[in-house]
């Protein structure tokens, strides 16, 4: 009986430790991406004559696949691009919600049009900037171009 009694306690702890063993993956199985020294995949250069086929392939390859926040409180956040528009701002209904006093609640929008993505300022108070130019009308956005919204900088990446 003593054996059963102690055996049961052992079983209890075996259960607890098996759970912990399963949970170890939380510690070791996660990928932590730091912005420092992140490889820039978009600097790969193409060599050779661009045939039409290759051009098309290049176009597909050149199509941005994600929107990355490169500066600001949300730095490191990536959003995959789908076929729908991305709304940037402070409102909870935005796709990219910025916690930033300097951004408007619905600040800017990035939407697909034809083969490219277009950046549009939605009448924000502090403006949306590409470099030092304020965006006044919708402009096509190419990968790697840095867009400043409030304190954050976002860019499209392949």
């Amino acid at each position: 009986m003593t054996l059963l009694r102690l055996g049961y306690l052992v079983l209890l702890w075996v259960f607890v430790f098996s759970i912990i063993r399963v949970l170890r993956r939380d510690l070791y199985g996660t990928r932590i991406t730091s912005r420092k020294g992140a490889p820039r995949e978009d600097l790969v250069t193409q060599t050779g004559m661009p045939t039409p086929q290759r051009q098309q392939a290049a176009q597909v390859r050149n199509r941005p696949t994600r929107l990355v926040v490169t500066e600001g409180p949300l730095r490191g956040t990536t959003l995959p691009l789908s076929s729908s528009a991305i709304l940037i701002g402070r409102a909870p209904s935005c796709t990219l919600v910025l916690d930033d006093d300097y951004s408007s609640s619905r600040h800017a929008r990035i939407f697909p049009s034809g083969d490219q993505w277009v950046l549009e300022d939605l009448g924000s108070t502090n403006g949306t900037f590409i470099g030092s130019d304020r965006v006044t009308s919708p402009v096509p956005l190419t990968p790697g171009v840095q867009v400043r919204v409030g304190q954050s900088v976002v860019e499209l990446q392949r």
Partner: protein
Amino acid sequence: MATVEPGRVRSGRSSEIGLLVLALALGIGAYALVGLSMEGRLPGNFYVLSGGMIALGSGMHLIIRWRAPFADPVILPIAVGLNGLGLAMIYRLDLANHLKGGDSELATKQLGWTALGMVAAVVVVWFLRDHRTLRRYTYTAMVVGLVLVALPLVPGLGQEINGARIWVGLGPATLQPAEFAKLVFAVFFAGYLVTNRDTLTLAGRKLLGMQLPRLRDLGPIIIVWLASLAILVFERDLGTSLLFFGMFVAMLYVATERISWVVIGLTLFGGGAIAAASSLAHVQGRFNGWLHAMDDEVFNKAFGGSGQLVRGLYGLANGGLFGTGWGEGRPDLVPYASSDFIVTSLGEELGLTGLLAILAMYLLFVERGMRIAIGTRDGFGKLLAGGIAFVVAWQVFVVVGGVTRVIPLTGLTMPFLAYGGSSLLANWIIVALMLRISDNARRPTPLPLRGGAREPEHDDDDTDDAVPAVRGDSPSDDETQVVRSVDVHDAGNPGSARRNPGTGTTETEIIGTVDR
């Protein structure tokens, strides 16, 4: 500044089945040991009962495999394990009651409630495809919650048992609507705070190195405080009152990251508790039984004394380090040993070693809840998961603290262990919600999502809708909404600490569709 995402998402279903086998072994083993030690043979309905438990557990596992394949693998086994332990202890106390000539059949009833609870969990996992649907019912939840809390006060419907008016009689069964109200309120608080947390984060004056909120933003916390005081006064239940207020303060803290809310909450509750202790007789009795538990006079008081508490403590002492073994102790000497004092019953028969293992299970359960809150991408899900995980932790603290004389004894139930249908049902629904949220949080997103370039959509809904419409070519049942973003830990960036009303992690959402 870093981004944390799982390297390779494992569904965890095989881990779950392994743990489930262990959890079932715990429950069934305990049941067998109780029979062997008290009657010298296996309990009469041993095979039926263990078969039932195995069927329920594996049935639920299969449903999760099917409907929530990426749900967290340890939640179900912990719940099944704790439920099994509780069942075995209740059965053991039934047997003790039979020896005294009683005929209590609490274990059978509890098994029925377990089955009902697991079925309810399956129903929730099955029909609730996306937890964000619940946000639509934020204010409905508030009304439902208030009705549930007020229900025991309705004459003819409410029943007063042992001085507390928290029961509702429905035919032969009595229910504690507050147990369900806590779920509904978790939905309401999450929905309310996710929309209003920006206002509540606005800082006012600084005092003692703490950013105090502005005076006019104190409204909500005062209202909840008054409501919980009303519960205390009219339903005379310290536990329920503590439960709701604690839950609100915790979720407020999670939503705003301001420690000042916790301090304000504790101050308010402390003030309320002192006022109640000096003016309300039943609270006074509880405090007296806590502070002067060992006094002869208090111990021997017919009603509201400390007899139960002290007997529970003696039980724990009798258990010692390794316990007396299943069926070898005398937990039945404590009144309500199968509900309020099931912790001391288990502590007596399993000892400190066993009790700590049980507490570790709760710890892991709550940890999973918090981890789900970190992993999920929408603010509502974060608050809901954090809130329900906190409620479980809070209940465990209040119950274990009560029976070990750390805090005054209150009438809360130990989740999954204690005898009580409403509590069991509500906690299984909590399990279902956690499974659903964790499934959404851990499900891998098809990155990159290459949608064909299309015309821009101009109908961006202005409404603050929790569940943005599925944008796809053919919205059908086979499509699943995909929410995608990455959590960012701000700790390493002093610049961003300036203003971050998020939940510690920032959130972003994007909606796409995939075919499953």
